[in-house]
């Protein structure tokens, strides 16, 4: 297997914990549409260790979003094995998957996906509603997270009252509030200008190095991928590159939108 974990990086607080947080093997995913069966992932295998910061790149239709949804337990593979933190996802029922999404995984979307009618503090606190945390603690922790992303002063605003970059920060605060081990981000900077995009990526880097959160993100921007410590490139549902981002990005023309 060409996937090789980057070990003992600087600042990794989980040094020594080298078990894979994500382990997928022979993953297939097909969609059945009117045009027939559409293969999206084709015999995909990979491992991601605790504390890694991985960027996934690939052209549209390469299956990167599908992979991300499967990794985030909001979609299921057609066949193949997915061990999340050592546990087989395929054997779990809907409630157990919901628990994983709530507890273990933080998900950041390209379109932010905040609830438009809820205030920022309520948006951030939402995952805690589903993990039976008392109201006082929910508010306290949500305020702490908002403070961490620098938006505490907007705690009672609504998502449409703040900028896109700020909304993505709120979404990140929400993804992190339950102290997940794994942060999945599907083109987190896709809807943002490059300056704001860099701010978000700086935040991700900090979360990875300081808090040791494993981060997997999708991007098609080389400068975003450069923040990661490992780059996986997909094409037609297969892994075509897995390794150092710098080496790969220098030899490949970065894709622009």
């Amino acid at each position, binding site marked *: 297997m060409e996937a090789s974990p980057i070990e003992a990086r600087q600042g990794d607080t989980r040094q020594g914990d080298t078990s894979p947080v994500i382990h997928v093997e022979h993953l297939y995913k097909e969609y059945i549409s009117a045009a027939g069966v559409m293969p999206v992932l084709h015999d995909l295998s990979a491992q991601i260790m605790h504390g890694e910061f991985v960027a996934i790149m690939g052209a549209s239709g390469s299956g990167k979003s599908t992979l991300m*949804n499967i990794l*985030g337990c*909001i*979609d299921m593979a057609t066949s193949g094995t997915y061990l999340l933190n050592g546990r087989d996802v395929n054997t779990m029922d*809907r*409630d157990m998957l*919901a*628990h994983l*999404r*709530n*507890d273990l995984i933080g*998900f950041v*979307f390209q379109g932010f*996906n*905040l*609830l438009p*009618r*809820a205030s920022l503090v309520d948006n951030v606190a*939402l*995952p805690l*509603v*589903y*993990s*039976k945390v008392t*109201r006082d603690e*929910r508010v306290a922790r949500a305020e702490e997270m908002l403070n961490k992303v620098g938006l505490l002063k907007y705690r009672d605003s609504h998502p449409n009252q703040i900028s896109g970059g700020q909304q993505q920060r709120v979404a990140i605060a*929400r*993804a992190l509030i*339950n102290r997940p081990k794994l942060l999945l981000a599907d083109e987190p900077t896709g809807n943002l200008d490059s300056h704001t995009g860099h701010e978000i990526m700086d935040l991700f880097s900090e979360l990875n190095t300081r808090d040791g959160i494993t981060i997997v993100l999708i991007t098609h921007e080389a400068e975003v991928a450069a923040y990661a410590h490992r780059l996986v490139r997909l094409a037609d549902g297969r892994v075509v590159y897995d390794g150092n981002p710098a080496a790969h990005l220098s030899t490949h023309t970065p894709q622009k939108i």
Partner: protein
Amino acid sequence: MITAMLNEAWIAMWANRLRTILTMLGMVIGVSAVIIMQAVGLGAQQQVQESIESMGSNLFIVLSGAPTSGGGVRMGSGAIPTLTTSDAEAIEELPTVAGAAPSVSDTAQAIYGARNWSTQITGTTSSYFTVRNWELDAGAPFSDSDIRSATRVALLGKTVVDNLFGDENPVGQTIRIKNSPYIVLGVLSAKGQSLNGRDQDDTILVPITTAQRKLLGSQFAGTVRFIMVQAKSAEAMPAVEKAINELLRQRHRIREGAESDFNVRNLTAMANTAAETTAVMSLMLGIIASISLLVGGIGIMNIMLVSVTERTREIGIRMAIGARDRDILLQFLLEAIIISIIGCLIGVILGIAGALAAQAIADIHVVITLGSILLAFTVATAVGIFFGWYPARQAARLRPIDALRFQ
């Protein structure tokens, strides 16, 4: 958890307030219809019940008549007096009979001072009070000696007192009926309407002998129009009816096979029929009202289905951050229940107001019970759960990825 969900339900309902209010309106109308219809139905039932109680229990009325004259012209009951006071006395002797009161009656003008009032004058015996279960508010009933000597004494019904005396105490005063003076012995207690809607208090009772000899005047001396008979118990009623028939046929010397010249009617059975009719009527009213509640429930289901479709993406987001199926189910179910409970509260208030307004304006007797309000609440909550369940389950069963991708 539940407070957070209530809060979210409130936010969602507030965001679509017009829609929420219109949906609620369906419940409001349904519940107030149920409350009003039940109040009217119970009111009617209570009125019938009161009439039955005021009539007296286990009653028969024996009417004279039903004879055929030679030409074959059949006269109505009571047209030809064939019953006599002694018939009544004989009936009273029967072992299963509690009392028998012979009665004659006619309409006449009663005068007191400058006021006059046309009312029904009934001549009867003191058995009448026990048979009809009728008490006096003031004064005393006439005695057997009043009946023997046909004295001019009278007992007045409430309505007669109100019209002749106003606030004055009538006991001991003298009224005039057909130009003869009568001393008022007492005032009868109020009985209200009879089953056929007649005011039972618009009456004057006098001794039967007085009525026969001095007041009404009949070509057949000693005859009576009807005899009211009370059986000792409800179980004895069939036996009493048979005994009266046999006794009177024998006394009137009617041959085997010939038609009776009297007519025994079971008033209690008729009253029970009336009570059953009212019960069926209030049941029908209830069913009709329930249909509007059902329509309200369908309105809730409709709106909840729209709401689930509209908020599919929101459901996807919630699922992506860890909402379980039952969290989503509860959220939508809670909304449906809140709409129905608030709708029910308003409906109860409007229903009570409507029922009281009907009573005040249209003079319809209504009865509002805690039971009917509780019933409305229970039904409304059940409707909310029943019609909220399907949309909520649709929401909870969505696959997270489908919900998130929904545009």
